[in-house]
């Protein structure tokens, strides 16, 4: 059996002196999809950037394919995992195609220019998120949802084996939310990529992920298969609000009481 794409050992995360995650042991294998759920300020984004190796954990180890993250340089990390952050304004900006091509950066040598092959990959990624035909638009003319889809296309261009997505559905309307989730589901299924995503909708997490990690914000975490862990009972405790569960054709839905 191959090594897990991502593994944490006794990982702890601290925000401004407050311990939000305590001794987390997590393994993510090829083709697996994991949702991270929790209240605002529970440390979801901070945990995700820690898992991406962008922030040092307070305690514990982080391994990519069995290699300690502290021994990998930033470029080697970028070849293994991609990270989708929350929206950042760009003071200068460039065109849609140029932005998508930035995903090729870790694959290129210092003096290399993007090749035809790289451009084809970027065009393919733009097509996959429904931005075909907008290659030469300046990114400042895009809407919030289009910017978000462009960020996702950049990740696809980077083509790693592990995707860490912080609120991938933000700014997206319903059809694009479903398209993006289907896209990552097929990336996991067909390419064996591992996906970890911070989500706000437990129903979508249940439908599109294999397991869920719940962050209670006080250091406690709980992880398990979505069928077992995403129930009205645990989610009511997680969000501090009573929820009722409805099942329809295998899909779960949670309605606030």
């Amino acid at each position, binding site marked *: 059996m191959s090594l897990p794409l991502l593994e944490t050992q006794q990982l702890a995360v601290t925000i401004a002196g407050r311990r939000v995650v305590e001794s987390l042991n997590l393994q993510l294998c090829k083709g697996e999809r994991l949702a991270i759920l929790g209240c605002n300020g529970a440390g979801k984004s901070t945990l995700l950037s820690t898992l991406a190796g*962008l922030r040092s954990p307070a305690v514990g180890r982080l391994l990519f394919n069995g290699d300690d993250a502290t021994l990998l340089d*930033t470029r080697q990390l970028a070849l293994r995992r*991609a990270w989708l952050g929350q929206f950042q304004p*760009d003071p200068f900006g460039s065109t849609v195609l140029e932005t998508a091509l930035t995903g090729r950066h870790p694959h290129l040598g210092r003096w290399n*220019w993007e090749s035809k092959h790289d451009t084809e990959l970027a065009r393919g990624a733009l097509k996959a998120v429904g931005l075909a035909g907008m290659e030469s638009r300046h990114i400042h003319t895009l809407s919030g949802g289009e910017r978000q889809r462009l960020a996702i296309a950049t990740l696809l261009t980077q083509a790693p084996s592990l995707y860490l997505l912080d609120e991938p559905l933000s700014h997206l309307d319903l059809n694009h939310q479903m398209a993006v989730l289907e896209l990552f589901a097929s990336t996991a299924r067909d390419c064996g990529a591992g996906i970890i995503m911070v989500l706000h909708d437990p129903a979508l997490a249940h439908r599109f992920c294999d397991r869920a990690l719940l962050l209670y914000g006080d250091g406690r975490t709980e992880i398990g298969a979505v069928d077992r862990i995403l129930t009205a009972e645990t989610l009511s405790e997680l969000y501090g609000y009573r929820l009722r569960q409805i099942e329809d054709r295998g899909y779960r839905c949670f309605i606030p009481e």
Partner: protein
Amino acid sequence: MPTRPRVILILASLALLSLVSIGLALTVGSLSIPLADVWSALLGQEVAGGDVIIELRLPRTLAGFACGGLLALAGALMQVLLRNPLADPYVLGISGGAGVGALLGMWLGFSAFGVDGLAFVGALAAMLLVFGLAHGDGSWTQTRLLLTGVIVASACGALIALLLALAPEDRLRGMLFWIMGDLSQANRIWPPLLALGLALSLAMPFARELNLLACGLMQAQALGVAVNRLRYVIFLLASLSTAAAVTTAGSIGFIGLVVPHLVRFLTGNDQRLLLPASVLAGGSLLVLADTLARILIAPQQLPVGVLTALIGVPVFLFLLARQPK
């Protein structure tokens, strides 16, 4: 990403512009010399006015070109480093430090060499002060760097005002010309030219990483850029380029702020093209402005810093208005 033919076309046109501006600077002036004679003089033949070309105009023109290139390069680097379109080479107090040093040297009656030396020491002192203070606890955020730089710059501004207030009448004019930026004293050409060559060749290997830095620090790091190392390198390169330019010609304004924007209109924001194009455009603009400064009210000369803005602003506004919305 600009295509290869486009890169070559843009850089070749700007190189041509540089040659034209240098040629113009060598031919016109209080003594008008035909281009053919200029060419002969450059090749070492005896012609009328040959001394004027070799001894006066050539050093001044080349020093001016180097300063313009250095300032435009430093401006482009600072704008990416601080992720702020309003950043220029002077925003972090480097020119302020150089100004305090230079004016102190003039006040004390130092020779031109001493003044330049003190200016360079002042620029380095300001750079180290800003770096030390901003780095402080190791966080080194953009906001902290920018704030520290602005504060150090305003402290230097106050010191400069103090020196001007206390300066003896007969030295005041020289001091004011230094502050506005003036090439008439620029006769050492090799330091700025070498600095320009070195700075550009050290910045170019990082050009693609700079493109990513503009998307945000975390984003750049996630895409494989060693962000902290990159920022140290860029801060040092931009500061030393600025120091080399202001030591040669005083604090010439406008070039460092606006040339990168002008070039961005033309080329887009790919730093691999923007950096060398800014160097060529900045050098040409400064040489043209200095030529005007020499001839407008000849035989008297204006400080070139006054003219850079007077030429650059209309060009900038014209291009801004033509930008597709």
